[in-house]
C-alpha cells in the first residue's frame, strides 16, 4: 500500500480537486484504492468563506476511513467494516467499504499518530493506494505518507512571483538529504559529538522554540567542546527559525562541518514561513554546516490553482476570482518537480507525473 498525501498550503488551493482527479484516474485503471483525510474536508460549503466546495465521488469497492457522523451525510452506501475507536469531533473513525457509489464526506484522523493507526487498519484490506486528503493548511500528519502532492495557488498567494519563490523554498526543504547516522539510538532532542569518544547530551525540552531555548542549546554544545570535533544535532520535532538563528549565532564557528538534523521536511516547514525556512537552510550552509532530515518524504508534484476568493468588504462576502490560466505555472517551470494546474492538464497527466505507472 502506497500512501499519497495531498496537502494544501491554504484553503481553496484545490486539494479536493486533485484528490478527485487521482480517484478518477485510479478507477479508470481499476486500482484498488482507499481514502482518508486529515480531519474534515469535502463539505458542501467552505466553512470560512461560504463558497461551495466539491465533494468526493467514490465508486463501489473503495475503502474509506471516516468519522461515523459523516456516513449519514454521504449519498454513497458505506458498509462499515470496523470501528477504529479513534475519537474525533465527528464521532469515531470507522473503516468502511463503498457498497454503492456516490458522494462521500471524508473526515479522517487529525493527528499524526492516529494516521499511523488508521494506516495499519487499512492495510488489512490490501488497497494498492491510500490517499490522504489534507484539510485546510494542515501538514503535520502528512509525515506519515510515502509521498506528497502539494496543492497551492492564488488562494495562498496572489502574486505569482512570490508564490513561485515560496514554492521553491518548500521544494528545497523536501530535497534536503537524508541523514544516515544511527549512533546510540539516534534520538531526537539530543546532541552527539565525537572527540576521543562519543558524547551525548539531551536538550532540556523536546522542542526548540524560543530564542532562550536556542541559547540553552548553544551553551549545552559549546561548553567543553574541543577543537575540531565532529558531531551532529538531532533537533526535536518542533523548532523555530528564531531559535536556530540564536543557536548558530553563538556556536557556528565551533561546530563547522557538523550536521543539523531536522526531523522531516514537513515539521521543518512548520518552523516558520517557507521564506524564512529557506533563508535558514541557506544560512546553515553558508556557515559550513549541513542541513539534513532524519526522514524524507518525496514531494511528488505541485498542483497550482488559479482560483482565489476575494473578500468584498462592502457586501461582506467572498467572491470567486481566477488568475489568468497558466500564469502561476509559468513562473515555476524551473523547479525540479512537476508543477501544473490539474484542471488544465487532466487526471491522466496528474497520475503519470505523481504516481507514474
Amino acid at each position: 500500500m502506497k500512501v499519497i498525501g495531498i496537502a494544501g498550503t491554504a484553503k481553496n488551493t484545490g486539494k479536493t480537486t486533485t484528490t478527485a482527479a487521482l480517484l478518477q484516474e485510479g478507477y479508470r485503471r481499476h486500482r484498488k484504492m482507499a481514502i482518508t483525510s486529515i480531519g474534515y474536508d469535502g463539505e458542501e460549503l467552505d466553512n470560512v468563506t461560504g463558497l461551495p466546495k466539491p465533494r468526493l465521488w467514490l465508486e463501489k469497492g473503495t475503502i474509506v476511513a471516516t468519522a461515523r457522523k459523516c456516513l449519514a451525510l454521504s449519498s454513497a452506501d458505506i458498509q462499515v467494516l470496523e470501528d477504529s475507536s479513534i475519537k474525533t469531533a465527528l464521532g469515531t473513525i470507522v473503516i468502511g467499504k463503498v457498497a454503492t457509489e456516490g458522494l462521500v464526506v471524508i473526515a479522517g484522523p487529525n493527528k499524526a499518530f492516529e494516521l499511523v493507526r488508521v494506516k495499519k487498519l487499512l492495510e488489512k484490506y490490501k488497497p494498492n493506494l491510500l490517499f490522504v486528503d489534507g484539510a485546510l493548511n494542515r501538514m503535520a500528519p502528512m509525515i506519515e505518507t510515502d509521498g506528497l502532492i502539494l496543492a497551492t495557488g492564488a488562494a495562498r498567494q496572489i502574486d505569482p512571483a512570490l508564490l513561485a519563490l515560496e514554492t521553491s523554498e518548500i521544494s528545497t526543504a523536501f530535497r534536503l538529504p537524508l541523514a544516515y547516522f544511527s549512533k546510540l539510538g539516534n534520538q531526537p532532542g539530543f546532541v552527539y559529538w565525537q572527540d576521543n569518544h562519543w558524547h551525548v547530551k539531551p536538550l532540556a525540552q523536546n522542542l526548540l522554540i524560543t530564542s532562550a531555548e536556542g541559547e540553552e542549546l548553544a551553551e549545552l554544545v559549546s561548553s567543553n567542546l574541543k577543537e575540531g570535533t565532529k558531531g551532529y544535532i538531532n533537533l526535536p520535532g518542533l523548532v523555530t527559525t528564531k531559535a536556530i538563528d540564536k543557536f548558530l549565532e553563538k556556536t557556528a564557528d565551533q561546530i563547522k562541518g557538523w550536521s543539523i538534523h531536522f526531523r522531516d521536511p514537513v515539521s521543518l516547514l512548520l518552523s516558520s514561513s517557507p521564506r524564512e525556512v529557506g533563508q535558514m537552510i541557506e544560512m546553515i550552509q553558508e556557515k559550513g554546516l549541513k542541513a539534513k532530515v532524519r526522514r524524507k518524504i518525496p514531494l511528488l508534484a505541485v498542483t497550482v490553482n488559479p482560483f482565489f476568493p476575494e473578500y468584498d468588504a462592502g457586501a461582506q462576502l467572498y467572491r470567486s476570482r481566477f488568475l489568468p490560466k497558466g500564469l502561476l505555472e509559468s513562473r515555476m517551470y524551473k523547479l525540479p518537480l512537476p508543477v501544473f494546474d490539474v484542471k488544465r492538464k487532466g487526471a491522466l497527466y496528474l497520475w503519470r507525473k505523481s504516481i507514474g505507472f
Partner: protein
Amino acid sequence: MVTCLERRKILLVPLDPVHDIGLKMIRRGLDKAGHKTLLLPPDLPSEEIISMMSKEQPDQVLISRTLGYGVAELLARFADLADAAGLRDKMGLVIGGMAIRPELAAELGFDAGFGPGTSVEEVVAYVEGRPYQRDANKVKKTKADLTANYTYQYRHNAIGELLDRIADGILGWVQGKTSPAIQRSRLRDNLWDIEQWRLGNINKDFTEAYSALCDPIAEAYYRSGEVHPKTRQLRAEEIERLEAYLTDTKSRMEPAKVQHWEEGQPKVFIQYGTGCPFMDIAHIKLSEAWGADGVVHFDPSWGARTEGFIGDFLTHQEDGSVITPENLSWTKAGLEEYTLWQVRAHRGLNTPETVVLAGKLGADLTKINIAYGSLAAGTDPARLTVDGVESIKMAAKYNLPFDVVTNEELAGVPAHKAFAGMLIVAALGRKLGGRPILQPLFCYSPEVMISGQMEQNYIDFNAAKIKALRKIMDAPIWPGAPIGFLTQTEDRVQSSMTTSLHAALAASLRVDAISIASSDEAYSGGPIVAASRLDTLTAVKEGFRFFGEGRVEATSMADRWADEMVQNIEKVLKDVADAPSFVDALYNGILGSKEEGAYPGRGGRDTIQVE
C-alpha cells in the same frame, strides 16, 4: 468536587487579542469542579503557547478564538505545531468560540469544538470525559396546572355569602330552561364520537338532529356542504403540505422558557387567530420555540353570533380562526405536548358546545363569562345565563379550568362592576365543581382614563385589582387579555416595552399566568406577523430576567384602591342579590350600565325554551 485522581489540569488559551468572557466562565466552572486551571494572557504567539503546553503538560488545552478571515489557517497551523511538537498524543486540544462547529474543529485538527450556546457544564463534562447529557440540561417543560394550589375559599365572608346567594338564585332561575345551544351541546356530548369522526364516519342521526338546531348558514353546510361565505376549504394538497411542515418543524423543536424564576413567574399565553389554521399553527410553533407556555384560540366574532358550528378545515381572511372540529383538531396536532391550549367559549351563541368540542378535542382550558358576554359581546343576558350555567357544567365534566374574563372594562364598565360579574361566574363555577380562574384586565381602561387612576403610573391600579381579588377569594389569577391593553402603540419598541413592564408587574404580584399581545397589538391594518410575536416574548423574557424574584413596588394608593374596590364590589353584589334575578340585574345595568358603555346584547333573544 473531583478527587485528586480525577483532577485534570487545563490550560486555557485566549487566542483572541482580548480575553473573552466565555473562557473565564469556563475557568470558573472548572475551578469549582475541582480542576486545576491555568489561564494564559491573550494574544500570545502560537509558538509560545506550544512551549507552555510542553512545559505544563496539561490534560486538556482549551483555546478560544473567534473565527475570521485567515483564522482557520492560523488554528490549523497551531494544531500542526502541537502535532510536530509531539504533544498531540499527550493532551487534548479543544477549540471554542463564535462560529465554531464540530466539523470545523475536525477540519482544524482539534479534538472537539464548542460553539456559541455551549454551557459551562458541557465543557466540564467533556474535560472529565463524561458524556454530556444535553437532555439533562435542556429546558424541561411540563404542562402547568394553573388551579392546582387554590382552595376557592372565600376570604371575605360577607361577599362570600352574597356570591353564594346570587349563584343559588341563578341555578334556580335556569332550572327547567334550555336553548338551542344547550341542545346542540348535549348532542355533541352524547352522539358525536370523536374516534368515529376521525375515521371519517358520519353519524347521520347526529347530523340530522344537529342541523335542525342551527342557523341557515350552518344548516346549509350539513344539507349541501356549503361553507360559510367568508371561508374557504383548505385543499387536500394544502393539508398535505401542512402535515409535511409540521413533521419537519416538530422534529426541530426544543422546549424554551420565558421565565427566569421558574416557580414564581407566571405562565405566558399568546393569542392566535390569523384566520387561517395553517398560519395559526406556524405562529404557534414559533411562539412555542420562543418560550410561550400556552396559546389561546381566537375565533371570529361572527362565529359567536351564528347558531351552530359547521365542519371542515376552513381558512378565512378576517380576524379570528373559525371553530370547526377539523380546525381545532389540526391545531391540537400542531401543539407540543407541554403547551397549554385554551379554546374560548365565553361570549356567544355556541358557548356550551364550544366547551364540549374543546373538551373532546383535547383543549386544556376554556373561557366563560356570562356578564361580559351579555353586556359587551352582544349576547342576550337571559340566553347567556342559561347557556353559561350549562357551559360551566360541561367544563367541569371535561375537566377544563376556565378563566372568567372581564373585557367589559374595555367598554367603560368600572373594574369593580366587572369584577362583581366575574366573581358571580366564579361562584357558579365553585358550586358546579368547576375550576374558575380570575382574569382581571391589566389595561389602560376607559374608567381610568376618565377617573385618572393611571395618571401617575400604570402600577397602582393594576396592583389594586389583584390585591382586591385576593381579599375576596383564594383563586388563581391570570391577568389579560392581553396585559397592557391600550397602553400599546404601533411602535414595536414601545409596544414590546410596555408589555414587558406589565409582565414584570404581573410577576411581582405573583399571579399564575398572563396573556401577552404581539408588538402589532395597536396596528389594525392587517394580521399580526410572526416577527412581532417574538418581539414581546423576547421582551417579557428580558423583563423576567431583570426582576427575577425582585418586585415592582406599588405606592400606598394600591392598597387604598384595593380596599375601595372591595367595598364597591360588595355594594354591587348586594344590589344584584336584591334584584329580582341575576338576569334582571344584567338588564338593569347593575353590573354595567349603558352610560358606562355596557349594552345588554340581543343575540339569541327569545330563544330560551322550556325543557
